[in-house]
């Protein structure tokens, strides 16, 4: 009786496994090319970050923050102090590794997300198609992305980057769509009435007008990348996250705290810097 009422198990998990297997078997060469390109990107950014010795790097970053924040001295000093603290904790190398992975992942995510956002803002159909996908990407626990990432790309930086990218894409897509959809109707009419091509209208009117919203997406993307990069340490992505993971395994409170603090510092700096890039309405 009990057996008759049982709902048969739909093998969704098996299906997912099959799909992953199929991709791996048939598209292996594409995955290899992708891995190579991403490795070049990450190591390129890392080389730039390691190019300057810490003291010079701190000065340069503080100067940049001073300039882009429209001469906010407090921010520049804060950035300098925070980075000095990282160096004094002897976490500089790990921090730069984390930073290079965050920047690479955020870059890839934005390069994909912003054009998708623009297209989705223009096409209601596309938006209806990607909306459930975005919901899926955002609510699926981020650890789950790590499994196919490892299968496709092995261990190390690249699977970390891929998992991070997938996780960090939805907010910039959504905020780009929102920004462009909220460009006042009259401004869009101005574009048309003066004979702009669709591209002119997009570049000269819609994107600048949507910029605050898009920049909020950029900010969210970088923040999410940072949080995911730490988790990606579980599949061998190097950096502060790996340090935290190691500290957990060894129950090393001091090392865990320091690495954690390092992550918080980067998060705050990246957040403040991207926010000061956002034009005021």
């Amino acid at each position, binding site marked *: 009786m009990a057996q008759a009422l049982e709902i048969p198990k739909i093998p969704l998990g098996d299906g997912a496994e099959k799909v992953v297997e199929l991709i791996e078997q048939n598209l292996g060469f594409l995955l290899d090319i992708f891995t190579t390109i991403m490795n070049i990107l990450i190591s390129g950014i890392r080389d730039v970050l390691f190019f300057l010795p810490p003291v010079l790097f701190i000065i340069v970053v503080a100067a940049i923050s001073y300039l882009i924040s429209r001469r906010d001295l407090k921010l520049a000093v804060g950035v300098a102090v925070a980075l000095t603290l990282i160096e004094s904790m002897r976490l500089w190398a790990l921090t730069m590794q984390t930073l290079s992975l965050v920047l690479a992942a955020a870059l890839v995510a934005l390069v994909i997300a912003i054009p998708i956002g623009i297209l989705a803002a223009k096409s209601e159909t596309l938006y209806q198609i990607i909306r459930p996908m975005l919901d899926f990407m955002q609510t699926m626990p981020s650890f789950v992305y790590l499994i196919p990432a490892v299968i496709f790309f092995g261990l190390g930086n690249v699977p970390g980057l891929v998992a991070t990218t997938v996780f960090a894409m939805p907010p910039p897509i959504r905020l780009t769509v929102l920004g462009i959809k909220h460009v*006042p109707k*009259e*401004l869009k*009419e*101005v574009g*048309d*009435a*003066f*004979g*702009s*091509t669709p591209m*002119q209208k997009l570049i*000269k*009117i819609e994107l*600048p*007008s949507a*910029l605050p919203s898009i920049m909020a997406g950029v900010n969210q993307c970088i923040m999410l990348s940072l949080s995911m990069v730490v988790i990606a340490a579980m599949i061998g992505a190097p950096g502060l996250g790996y340090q935290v993971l190691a500290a957990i395994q060894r129950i090393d409170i001091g090392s865990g705290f320091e690495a954690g603090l390092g992550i918080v510092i980067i998060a705050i700096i990246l957040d403040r810097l991207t926010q000061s890039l956002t*034009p005021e309405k």
Partner: protein
Amino acid sequence: MEEKTKIEIKDVSKVFGKNPKKALGLLEEGLSKADILEKTGNNVGLYKLNFEIKDGEIFVIMGLSGSGKSTLLRCINRLIEPTVGEILIDGSDVVKMKSETLRELRRNKLGMVFQNFGLIPHRSVLDNVAYGLEVRGIDKEERYKKAIEAIENVGLKGHENSSISELSGGMQQRVGLARALATDPDILLMDEAFSALDPLIRSEMQDELLALQDRMQKTIVFVSHDLDEALKLGDRILLMNEGKAVQIGTAEEILTEPADDYVAKFVAGVDRSKVLVAEAVMKRPDPVISINSTLKVAVQLMRKHGISSIYVVDRNKILKGFVTIDEAIEGMKAGKTIDDVMKKDSETTSPDTPLNELIPIIESTSPVAVVDERKKLLGVVVRGSVLGALAMEE
């Protein structure tokens, strides 16, 4: 003024919704807009409009909100696609144009001014005004030169590099106007251009538009819900209700010969003294006396017509002065000529003076002579006819 047709609207209808043809069919059967909305979910925006706009005139499309006036304006540059009908600009049908041709038309012939100004907030005044030239691909130096000209034209010289948020509403709309003028279009489409401004600024902008129009002679299609504005600006006015044309005519025609009750109700609240001009209430200057005639004839004429003074004109009907009956009789006895006794400081006015400006004059002196620029006598306005026109049943 040239009477060439610039824009021709032929059988234009617009239905918003999924099944416009069906809604049009029901309209033919005589169903009302509300019934059709309920039955089909389609909203009738415009129905069977037919009219022409002449080259160089200010044509005001006027109606309450929801009457379809903004929709109609947007059909002219196809920001909104008409469901059926033809819209000819200089003879070519906008509705059938390919997007490339339409773009060229919008770039070169049509300028538009928006209700909420439609200024691009991240651009300076100069770059806003230069926008139309920029999308045309004109290089920076030339487009800035033209933009600066347009900015001076609307009285904003010195504000080229201001940001939009620094400007008051009136100034912002001047920027909007300058942007539309910068490309030197034939046709200006103005959508409730002054409605967002407070009354004093609005009136100032209206005067300025009229002054600009005197210099530029564009064809202006002006949408407004404000009857006073329509009457002030419009050479001709199209009155719309529920997407249909109710009446087309000059301000006076609409005031004095309303086509139906709707128009009559609409114009009931108008201050007629601002709209009616001297020309509308003046009488034929009859009789007048030639300067070469004699005082005896003048006295006879005045007695015959029972009047106490008479205008003196020359052979070309140019006003020379007037003679009162008392002075004429005295002069006649003394053997003087008309020229000797006539008063040369007669009160005059131009035919387009509105009655509200005429009233203070006519209080102290009556009659007032209506003359053109060459002082040719066109007519006379007497106190009674002014008051009569103002008191007319509305």
